[in-house]
C-alpha cells in the first residue's frame, strides 16, 4: 500500500536555515545539510528546501547546499524558491535535486511547466501554489507571497495539472506560521479536483494537524516549525499518524 508522506521543509536563506513566520520575521537556526541529514536519518519521507529570498538575491548558495545534501541524504530532495526557467531547473537537478518546485514562473508563464515536465518528466515538476482566502474563494500570490495576482487558486490548480505538473504543493498563506492547522477546505477542494498528488502546507502546530491534512485528501503533509524547533521528531509524527490508522512508512 502506498504510504502517506511526511515532508519536513527547511527554509533556506543565503545557505542557512531559517523559518519564516507569515513569510517575514526570520530567525537563523542552522546548517541545512546537517538538518537534512538529521531528518532523513529520522525517517523523513522526503526533504524540501525552500530558498525563500531567492527571487531577489544571489542564488549560488542554494546550489552548493543542494549538492552537499544530495551526497549525504538518500531520500528524495525537493528544491523551490526563485526558480525562473528551464535552465534553473536543469541546474538544480544537476546539483542533485530530485524535484523542483515552481511558483512565480508557473503563474507568469505556464509554458515553463509544460516545457519542463516534457523535458525532465512530470515526476520532478512540483507547482507551488500560495493561496489566500478572498471573497469566499482563494487567490494565488507570487514572489514568496508578496504579489497578489487576482487568479483563482482552484482554476490555477486545474490548469497546472493539465500543463504537466507532477504534484501540487498547496500552501495557505492565511495559515502559514500560525500553527493553527492547515486550511482544510482548501486542501479538500484542490485534492478532490485534481488527479495528481497534493502536498498540504502551511499552519502545522500539532500532530493532529498532520492527521487532518491527510484526512482532507492530501497525499503528503509538509511542515517546518514543529520539526525544526524540535517540538516533535519526524518519527513521533509518524507513530502518531499510524496510531490514527493513517498508513505511513515506519
Amino acid at each position, binding site marked *: 500500500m502506498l504510504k502517506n508522506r511526511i515532508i519536513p521543509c527547511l527554509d533556506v536563506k543565503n545557505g542557512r536555515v531559517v523559518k519564516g513566520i507569515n513569510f517575514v520575521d526570520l530567525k537563523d537556526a542552522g546548517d541545512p545539510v546537517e538538518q537534512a541529514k538529521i531528518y532523513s536519518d529520522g525517517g523523513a519521507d522526503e526533504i524540501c528546501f525552500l530558498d525563500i529570498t531567492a527571487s531577489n538575491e544571489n542564488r549560488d548558495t542554494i546550489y552548493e547546499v543542494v549538492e552537499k545534501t544530495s551526497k549525504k541524504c538518500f531520500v*528524495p530532495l525537493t528544491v523551490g524558491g526563485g526558480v525562473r526557467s528551464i535552465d534553473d531547473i536543469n541546474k538544480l537537478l544537476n546539483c542533485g535535486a530530485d524535484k523542483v518546485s515552481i511558483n512565480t514562473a508557473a503563474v507568469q508563464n505556464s509554458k515553463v511547466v509544460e516545457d519542463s515536465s516534457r523535458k525532465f518528466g512530470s515526476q520532478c515538476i512540483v507547482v507551488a501554489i500560495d493561496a489566500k482566502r478572498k471573497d469566499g474563494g482563494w487567490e494565488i500570490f507570487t514572489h514568496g507571497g508578496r504579489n497578489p495576482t487576482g487568479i483563482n487558486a482552484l482554476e490555477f490548480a486545474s490548469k497546472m495539472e493539465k500543463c504537466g505538473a507532477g504534484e501540487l504543493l498547496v500552501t495557505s498563506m492565511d495559515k502559514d506560521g500560525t500553527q493553527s492547522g492547515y486550511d482544510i477546505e482548501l486542501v479538500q477542494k484542490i485534492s478532490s479536483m485534481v488527479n495528481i498528488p497534493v502536498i498540504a502546507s502551511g499552519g502545522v502546530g500539532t500532530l493532529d494537524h498532520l492527521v487532518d491534512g491527510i484526512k482532507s485528501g492530501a497525499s503528503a503533509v509538509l511542515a517546518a516549525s514543529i520539526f525544526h524547533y524540535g517540538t516533535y521528531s519526524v518519527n513521533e509524527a509518524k507513530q502518531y499518524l499510524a496510531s490514527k490508522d493513517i498508513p505511513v512508512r515506519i
Partner: protein
Amino acid sequence: MDVTIVDYKSGNISSVINSFKEVAKGKVNIEVTSDLNKIKSSDKVVLPGQGSFKSCIDGLNSINGLTDTLSEFALNNKKPLLGICVGLQMFADVGYEEVETKGLGWISGKVSKINNQNGKYKLPHIGWNQINIVKESKIFKDIENNSHMYFVHSYEFIPNDKSVATATTDYSSNIVCAIEKENIFGTQFHPEKSDKTGLNIIDNFLSL
C-alpha cells in the same frame, strides 16, 4: 571492478551517481559516460531513466552505436546490467507513453499507463510503497519482504512471461516492480532514493 552508469543526457541522474558512489566507496570504480569502449570494457552497467519512455529511447538512439553496444553487453556477453525506472521499462518491446515507441526488446512485454480506476488512484504513483517479493533475486539479498521503496511513475512494465518478475507493489493492481532475467536486473522503484534499504540493493548489485 569497473561499473558504468550510462549517461545518455536523458533526465536527471545525479542521485543515481551519488548513491552508487556512496556504496562503491573505495571498492568499485564508477564511471559515468556514454563512451562505447568504456561500456564494453565495464564489468557491470547501470541504465538509469527519467522522463518519458519515448524521450529515453530517443536519448539512447541519439548516441550512435549505444543500443547495439548495450545489447551486446547484456544479451551476448551476459554481463550484469541494472535498469532503474524507465531504464527497466526500456527492456520491453514497446511503450505507449506519448506515442507508441519501440523498446529495446530484451524482455518481451509492454509498458502501459497504470489504470487509475477513474481517478481513484492518483498518478504519478509517487511515494513509499511496499514491495512484495515473489521470487528470489540476487539483488534482494538481506532485503526483507514488504520493505518500503520510493516510487515515481505513471507507467508500468507488463512482461509477457510473469516469471521474470521478482517483486510487485500494490497500486491499483499488482505492478511488477523488480525483475531478474539471467544477468539482466531492473527496478521500477528508485533504490538510489530508498534510503538504507535502497543502498543495500545497490550494494547487492555491485557485489554480484
